[in-house]
């Protein structure tokens, strides 16, 4: 059969070409990659950010099915840890980044657009309270978020995060 020699030639050429193409692409990639040492950027523990969120009217948020905080159906199913002990013990003394973002107030753009008459402070206070009453540190439990100030504050919480 002459088909096999023809096929073998095609496959051989294709395989060698694939090798050459891959090595060539790799060399090209290394040439285009930025040279020099990468500067390791500092990793602050907290960073400022801006939150853009729709203003939800209290009536609309609670009566219509906006989809906020609705946990219907959740209570029908238990989560791990509710009634049984966890399969593997969590690492004692270790902390997790579990802060809720802290709201400082309106962003610079909003503040500059606000009239001087003072509508902003009230609204800022309301929004700040909405988040700040939850506390800067919140612990996530099966019952929802609970303020760490209400629970026993551990010394290890203030130490840098560690892995075993």
């Amino acid at each position: 059969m002459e088909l096999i020699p023809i096929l073998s030639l095609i496959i051989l050429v294709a395989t060698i070409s694939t090798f050459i193409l891959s090595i060539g692409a790799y060399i090209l990639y290394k040439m285009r990659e930025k040279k020099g040492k990468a500067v390791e950027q500092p990793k602050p523990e907290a960073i400022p950010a801006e939150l853009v969120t729709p203003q939800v009217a209290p009536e609309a948020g609670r009566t219509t099915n906006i989809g906020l905080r609705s946990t219907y159906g959740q209570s029908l199913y238990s989560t791990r840890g509710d009634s049984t002990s966890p399969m593997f013990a969590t690492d004692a003394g270790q902390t997790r980044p579990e802060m809720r973002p802290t709201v400082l107030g309106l962003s610079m753009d909003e503040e500059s657009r606000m009239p001087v008459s003072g509508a902003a402070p009230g609204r800022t206070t309301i929004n700040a309270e909405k988040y700040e009453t939850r506390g800067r540190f919140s612990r996530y439990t099966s019952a929802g978020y609970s303020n760490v100030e209400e629970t026993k504050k551990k010394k290890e919480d203030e130490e840098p995060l560690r892995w075993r």
Partner: protein
Amino acid sequence: MKNEKLKIILDNREIEAPHRDFKKEKIRSAIISGILSLILILIIAITLPMTVLPLSGLFVYASIVALVLFLFLLLARYFTLIWLSYFYMTKYTVSEKPFYTPFVSIIVPVYNEGKVLRNSIESLLKLDYPNYEIIIVNDGSTDNTAEVGEALVGLHKGRNSWVKVSLINKPNGGKSKALNAGIQYSEAEFVLCMDGDSTLSAQTLKMGMRHFTDPEVGAVAGNVKVENRGKPLLDLQALEYIEGLNMARSAQGFLKMVNIIPGPIGIFRKRALHDAGYYSSDTFAEDADLTLKILAKGWKIEYEPEAQAWTEAPASLFQLLKQRYRWTRGILQAIRKHKRFLYNPIINFNNTLVLWSMAFEALLWPAMNIFANLFFITVALLYGMTSLIVFWWFGIAILDFMAAIFCVAAEKEEARLIPYSLIYRIFFVLMIDITKGMATVEEFLGLAMSWGKLERIGVSKK
């Protein structure tokens, strides 16, 4: 409805990985490999005079033995994956899970995705799910992503309910930090993390959330598909996602031990994320790292084939190899980070199994594929045995063809992708494996690498 902008402070902490002394590791690797090489040389020096074969014959004999082992492993791997995947599909088809609709936050991290963000959000608003919100996290984009995102903020009419869309603008810190920011802001018990350039199918949340009725399930991996098809390279990637990635994932799903929750679609229980310490930024495969952390804490991870994310695959060869290079190094970094499970199965046997299979797929498998191809090229060029390569290709093509038919049928995909399986391994997989080999060498040499960015052209059709 007006939007309001608020200044917030985000927690940027993450769990620190164990300190590594790189210099000590390199010295230790050099000493161990040096000792092993000396032992091997001694064995060869002592036993070589006892053999009846000349050196070249010994080389050919050893190569043939290695090749037979590779073929055996190839068959075992294929049949294991296909059978486990088949069992999973069968179980999936006959079992009935009740629908479960708790409140879910969908986190969409974006960096310079101004061209595709709107399409992503529009697909999210079409989800067939009654109880969710969308949180866009702009990771310091330099294009018009912030403007596009801000225009999308508000209360939108979804398929079954109103959906709140919020935006967080933060300084650039990487995908893992962006996801952590969104998870922090979310008050839901469940979060769906996706890529900013992906679109989700309407059934994604509804089908994915069913698995969380099991309290042991910590996360659900979705099904990633290539959206921009039509060219050979893209169709090959589409086939790879179906046959190479999703088949493996459904096989792992049968054991509830999916080893990588894909970045474009992953649904998490917040408690599992909390146990795992959320995303970390010390590897280039934060999805693999997080999955291993969740498994290490004893949570189960399911796979849901109907939770589909459509993503834009790299259109050029260069972009593709760059992506695979990053994936390989990221996965190796994740394996290294969890290497204590490799050596000590007593800590968590399931995790040991998962890590060994990942190490096999990332290290041994590409090396064996490259070796097999080099062997056939060598015997063809040096010994004139050109027909061997045809039989090799024929055997592999039959195997891939069979797997492609099964996977395309199981996922109800396009049948036109099946013929690509004939060149899949000999061309596409070989190329990827060579890139993986280079990436592996660089990772073990400890060479630095950067993230890079995939060029977006915005091809969303859904």
